[in-house]
């Protein structure tokens, strides 16, 4: 139902969508987001054990907040060409709001808490304040749930 993979290999979007779609008769909404390399090839460094652990923790947070019937988080590492998928976040739920929001939440947190580092032709990519802000909004709204 809930799948995490930190891998060097490419992923298959159609396959991941089909897995979520076929999880249960109650699945009425599937969201699959993919992030891909733009502009120039990248090398992704990562901290394997912590990556798995952080993604698992974020997935547990998402499951506590939304009625997800399944989810998939795949993050790649190593050399990646322009246009190749870096990350896939998929969610399945009965209705679209939980699927959309759960996927956005997971993606926002992956940006700020999954230990991956991108290096391009001109050096290491700098972290963006806008990513911190995107993740922080999920904390700001916690009291309203």
């Amino acid at each position: 139902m809930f799948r995490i993979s930190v891998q060097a290999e490419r992923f298959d979007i159609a396959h991941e969508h089909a897995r979520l779609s076929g999880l249960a008769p109650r699945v009425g909404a599937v969201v699959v987001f993919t992030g891909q390399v733009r502009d120039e090839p990248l090398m992704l460094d990562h901290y394997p054990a912590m990556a798995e652990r952080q993604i698992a923790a974020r997935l547990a947070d998402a499951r506590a907040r939304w009625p997800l019937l399944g989810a998939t988080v795949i993050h790649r590492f190593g050399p990646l060409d322009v246009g190749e998928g870096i990350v896939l976040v998929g969610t399945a739920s009965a209705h679209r709001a939980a699927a959309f929001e759960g996927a956005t939440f997971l993606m926002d947190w992956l940006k700020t808490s999954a230990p991956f580092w991108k290096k391009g032709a001109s050096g290491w990519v700098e972290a963006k304040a806008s990513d911190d802000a995107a993740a922080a909004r999920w904390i700001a709204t916690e009291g309203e749930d």
Partner: protein
Amino acid sequence: MAVALLYFAWVREQVGTDREEIPLEAPLPLRALVEALRARSPGHGRALADLSRLRAAVNQEFAGWDAPVRPGDEVAIFPPVTGG
């Protein structure tokens, strides 16, 4: 006892290794550990000079500079993450 140190991204490149062990007999705040590491080589000194450019994890959880490091811990030092 010892502490395992892991370095990532440009911290790894400047330090010149991805992993090393240093002896540690008693708990020490992370900040003091990093300050002590600066003396190990010019690369360590350069990479670890500015804590505001660095983040750290103790036993694979993000940790602040005041967090204690204990003998046997795994400490990772790296730039802010840029995955996703």
